[in-house]
């Protein structure tokens, strides 16, 4: 299955300039247009190139360990009141779905003859994944990370450095993910000839949203077939967490054409959308332009970007991929907020029922599923089948979770 992870399938596509309805496009300095065009060309060529697809497929299989399992979580299901199937992206090399994207883009970087990759990272997961691919492909790697994040994710900084990457703490603006992305963009403008900006989610200027979606699309392609094999039918719903939104698009894409399959994206509701302290760009934001694309953005009345808040560093971003904005506009997918507390309750439930520690990002998908299950059961008049994208593992979150639950021994 992974050998043809890029085989064409029917599904929503942007126009040739990367517009998903009224969203997407390119809002970038002219200096970057040539590089984006080059990338667009390389990506389109690669997508139809058998040798690229074979190489990518082999890497996904032999290096990343995909297809990931679709696991029926029976004890969790019993608590939730739905037949819950977990797409185990947490078992991939580096611990999340993100490895699919970085392998695809690193392969393209080589094809374009570039020798250096740069990346932005919040919690450090995408930075670690990028550093991993850079080591594998012998590319120079520079990762921009907000200073606030380098301090609270010191272990991931060390991981990146072990893998040979240079980590640059970003000290301007709010010193978090969005500022790391600004700084990476500035680096790219200055070094675009030899550098590829390996964006970590399905956001940014065209072709990134569609390209990243294509590289992670295997999640849904695999899950759809695995669900058919396991249950003899399609699920009633597919759920995922949404920050930038790559894991959600990755699993949604294969199901968009299956009208009976409901799609749910769960955004980070932080302390609750009404409090203003959240990262729910679709539920609590408005249409705007950020980081090269038109999408839903958390912004004030003057269009200044607002700081987002979430217990999950990976969802703590004030924008969202433009394809999600479009799926929301068209009504094909539903987007709902999940608070920190709801996510952590689901986090604990999965730990205790299945012996699986999820990433706090993925715990948002689990929490949304917990809330969705009874409604769907009532509507269908039977137990629903729900595929949940367990996009990453929780090793990186042990400190945050331990702190949250108050289970860390006090320092002596």
């Amino acid at each position: 299955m992974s050998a043809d992870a890029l085989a064409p399938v029917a599904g929503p596509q942007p126009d040739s300039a990367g517009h998903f309805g009224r969203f997407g496009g390119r809002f970038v300095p002219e200096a970057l247009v040539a590089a984006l065009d080059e990338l667009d060309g390389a990506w389109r060529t690669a997508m139809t190139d058998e040798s690229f697809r074979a190489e990518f497929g082999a890497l996904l299989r032999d290096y990343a360990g995909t297809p990931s399992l679709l696991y029926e979580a029976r004890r969790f299901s019993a608590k939730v009141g739905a037949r819950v199937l977990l797409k185990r992206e947490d078992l991939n090399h580096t611990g999340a779905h993100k490895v699919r994207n970085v392998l695809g883009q690193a392969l393209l970087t080589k094809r374009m003859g570039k020798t250096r990759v740069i990346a932005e990272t919040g919690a450090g997961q995408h930075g670690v994944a990028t550093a991993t691919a850079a080591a594998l492909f012998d590319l120079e790697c520079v990762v921009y990370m907000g200073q606030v994040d380098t301090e609270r994710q010191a272990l991931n900084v060390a991981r990146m450095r072990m893998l040979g990457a240079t980590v640059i703490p970003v000290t301007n603006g709010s010193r978090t993910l969005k500022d790391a992305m600004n700084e990476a963009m500035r680096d790219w403008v200055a070094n675009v000839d030899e550098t590829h900006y390996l964006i970590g989610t399905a956001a940014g200027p065209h072709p990134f949203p569609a390209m990243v979606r294509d590289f992670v699309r295997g999640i849904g392609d695999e899950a759809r077939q695995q669900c058919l094999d396991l249950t003899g039918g399609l699920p009633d719903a597919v759920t995922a967490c949404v920050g930038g939104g790559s894991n959600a698009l990755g699993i949604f894409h294969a199901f968009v054409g299956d009208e009976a399959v409901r799609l749910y994206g769960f955004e980070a509701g932080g302390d609750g959308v009404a409090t203003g302290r959240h990262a729910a760009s679709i539920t609590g934001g408005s249409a705007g332009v950020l980081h090269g694309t038109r999408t839903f953005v958390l912004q004030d009345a003057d269009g200044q970007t607002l700081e987002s808040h979430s217990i999950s560093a990976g969802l703590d971003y004030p924008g969202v991929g433009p394809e999600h904005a479009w799926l929301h506009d068209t009504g094909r997918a539903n987007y709902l907020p999940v608070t920190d507390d709801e996510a952590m309750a689901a986090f604990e439930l999965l730990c205790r029922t299945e012996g699986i520690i999820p990433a706090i990002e993925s715990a948002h998908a689990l929490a949304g599923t917990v809330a969705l299950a009874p409604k769907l059961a009532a509507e269908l008049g039977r137990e629903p089948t729900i595929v949940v994208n367990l996009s990453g593992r929780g090793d990186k979150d042990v400190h945050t979770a331990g702190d949250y639950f108050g289970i860390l021994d006090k320092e002596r």
Partner: protein
Amino acid sequence: MSRIGVAFDKARADGRALLVGCMPAGFPTVEGSIAAMTAMVEAGVDVIEVEIPYSDPVMDGPVIQRASDIALAGGVRTADTMRIIEAVAATGAPVVTMTYWNPVERYGVDVFARDLASAGGTGLITPDLIPDEADEWLAASDAHGLDRTFLVSPSSTDARLAMTVQHCRGFVYATAVMGVTGARARTSDAAPTLVSRARAVTDLPIGVGLGVGTGAQAGTVAGYADGVIVGSALVRCVLDAPTEADGLAALRTLSAELAEGVRNPTR
């Protein structure tokens, strides 16, 4: 012809380049920025570029980022920028506005154009809006008689260069280097080539920005371009000054040096 076009023509007739000086609106305060821009005009800056501070300025280097952050932390609003433009336009110098796209979109593109025109602004420089995405701005700028300055870059292909200048009105902004704003030790080698490539496809005046910070550099750029655009070096005068009066004095000194530079083009 636009007021900027007239100013470029006059400078050209005088055998010199036009000096464009940039300052973020509301930096260090609303009144402080009006005082700074007025001082620049008095010391010989021909055109004032008012930058609307934005939370995520990807084309700007550390100096303008810091100034923008200070302005935003001080609570400056887009409506204040309109007031600043009006005050600076009253000095008689043409005022062009540089803005990232989201503040305009949030304000409402047509309403923004209307308010900008009635404040006496000549038009917009749009660092993250390319003509490909600019339909709404093309219509609004036509409706309200505003200039449109899109950027061209050393990496622009010939086709994009031709397309971009075709959508410009007033003047074209050539980015001298591949990079962000900020004074640099050396002027760019890529800029003269870019300017001559642009000249092959447009009669509009061409301003060169990014990395110009001294009178000598201004003279070098004036040797091949119609306009010399200076930002970070001027902003730094205010940023580094211990008092507002010191900042204005430093600003006057540098403005005069730059004005001298554009009158002594190095050819």
